[in-house]
């Protein structure tokens, strides 16, 4: 288990390094930082001056090395738009997005686990077909459209929930639904497929033949083995949700990392955008790493280094 963990962590670090380089170079090639700093309509000599003053005329590799070494020391630079330290901005908004992401995953699991298990226990019946139909419809509905429908229902018609803002837990309800419903179908299908497979497995037949309780047969023996792919997907989806939070946070003006990313992109605020991209990548890498380690615990056969 230890050897496996060490190898897996080394890979995660290498991936993080590669992603940071790729995203840095991609953003620099897409737009000109000097123009962004000098501002719209700046004269050519102003831009040239900025380029020299900020060292933007040096090769990209040198700039990346400098940015990386600063970043590793916790210095993400100063936001061009908000005019404050990026690290403070990000630290401010990160909790909001983490709460949203986690709540969405929990909501998605709370919907998809029972439905997936239910469908697997009654395969090819109307219960199963209903669950599948829900999943297919859910996967087709664009999340921004769903979010606006939620606003129409809960804010405009029922007047139960605030349209936008961050202050209270009520502000998180609609964003959680809008973000979580989107990944629930994938979970449900995976749980259903996994449960159908494990319920037909020989060891589940052994559990039945040993007279174990139906609860133990379904949850201890079948579900645990069916969950292995779900855990991997949950990590991937949480990363995906953090990306999707841009759309949802922007619609509900929920003041998290996604909304910050949207603002930084529209204002061409390079340092902030760069920091958010890096942070989301690192969170994703960390999550997949965690999922692999959890899976190694769930399935002893994976613990081979």
């Amino acid at each position, binding site marked *: 288990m230890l050897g496996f963990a060490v190898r897996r962590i080394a890979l995660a670090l290498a991936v993080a390094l590669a992603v940071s380089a790729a995203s840095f170079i991609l953003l620099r090639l897409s737009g000109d930082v000097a123009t962004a700093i000098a501002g719209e309509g700046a004269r050519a000599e102003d831009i040239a001056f900025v380029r020299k003053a900020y060292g933007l005329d040096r090769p990209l590799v040198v700039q990346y090395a400098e940015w990386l070494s600063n970043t590793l020391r916790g210095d993400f630079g100063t936001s061009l738009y908000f005019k404050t330290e990026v690290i403070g901005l990000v630290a401010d908004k990160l909790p909001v997005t983490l709460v949203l992401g986690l709540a969405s995953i929990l909501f998605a699991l709370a919907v998809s686990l029972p439905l997936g298990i239910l469908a697997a226990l009654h395969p090819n019946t109307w219960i199963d077909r209903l669950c599948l139909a829900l999943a297919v419809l859910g996967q087709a509905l664009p999340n921004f459209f769903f979010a606006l429908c939620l606003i129409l229902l809960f804010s405009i018609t029922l007047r139960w929930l605030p349209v936008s803002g961050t202050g209270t837990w009520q502000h998180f309800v609609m964003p959680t639904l809008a973000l979580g419903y989107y990944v629930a179908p994938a979970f449900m299908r995976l749980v259903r497929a996994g449960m159908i497979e494990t319920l037909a497995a*020989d*060891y589940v037949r052994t559990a039945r033949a040993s*007279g174990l309780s139906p609860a133990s047969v379904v949850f201890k023996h079948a579900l645990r083995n069916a969950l292995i792919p779900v855990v991997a997907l949950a990590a991937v989806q949480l990363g995906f949700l953090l990306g999707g939070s841009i759309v949802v946070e922007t619609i509900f003006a929920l003041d998290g990392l996604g909304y910050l990313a949207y603002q930084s992109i529209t204002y061409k605020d390079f340092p902030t955008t760069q920091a958010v991209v890096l942070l989301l990548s690192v969170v994703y890498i960390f999550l997949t790493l965690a999922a692999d380690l959890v899976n190694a615990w769930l399935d002893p056969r994976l613990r081979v280094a």
Partner: protein
Amino acid sequence: MSALLSVEGLTVDLAVPAGTLHAVRDVSFEVARGETLCVVGESGCGKSMTALALMGLLPRNARRRARRLVFDGVDLAAASPARTNALRGAKLSMIFQEPMTALNPAYTIGNQLCEVYRRHKGGSRAAARERAAFLLGKVGIAAAGERLGQYPHQLSGGLRQRVMIAMALMCGPSLIVADEPTTALDVTIQAQILKLLKDLQAEFGMALVLITHDLGVVARIADRVAVMYAGEVVERGTAAQVFAAPRHPYTAGLIDCIPVPGRTKPGERLGAIPGTVPALVGTIEGCAFRQRCAFAQPACASAPPVHADAGHEWACVRGAA
């Protein structure tokens, strides 16, 4: 004394896309306490379905009917699923063909053995563990205490089958149903496992229903034999009766297929029964074996009569020789 297990007119129908598959047709047999009954037949003859029907573990698309299905005084045909479930693993255990996949890969051997014991007998974790270690010793696993903490993938196929046997024994059952318990194992290990089953049966006094396609196995272990063909029992009796004087041509054919050390010369052709098992979808008119039978005659087109001779029964137009 009444039989431990009494089966009369057991029928299993499977709903398949092509129609209804009659996997088991009107099967009857009895097993006394401490006795070994071997159910033999080719694959697809309904012997595994018979075992699953006894256990109440038939697949979802199967329907079981029986005139009489009584185990240890309990009418299984009328028992609720919960009542049957309480018997399984406690008084009525089962061992499966595939030891490689029959244990849950996610839990240790000890965890799985103890769960069965505590489910039926209650008691402390320590008591269950002690029982598990004792039985692992009994099934011939060295360093039992250590093995309890291991996962199935750390054990060989032979060891896993020994663990499955220990699991079946956990609660001191009065009947074990073993469905081809040695088929998936190496030949040398097959003999060991078979001997182990026989020894354990002598020690713990439980009855055994052994499902197999291998008459060699039957010859070594059976008290009584039921030969199945196309979902029906075509011949049954004591092992001595069936082996000494097989009455049904199918049984005789099967016995010809056993290689006998000393008598079968190397390179000599073993007997084989020509033809294949008929499809079990729909009804079968007359004797199901007649297409493959060397003694077939016009009378075989109608249902064969059942002959009986001192507890030896067979279904064939040909009576006692």
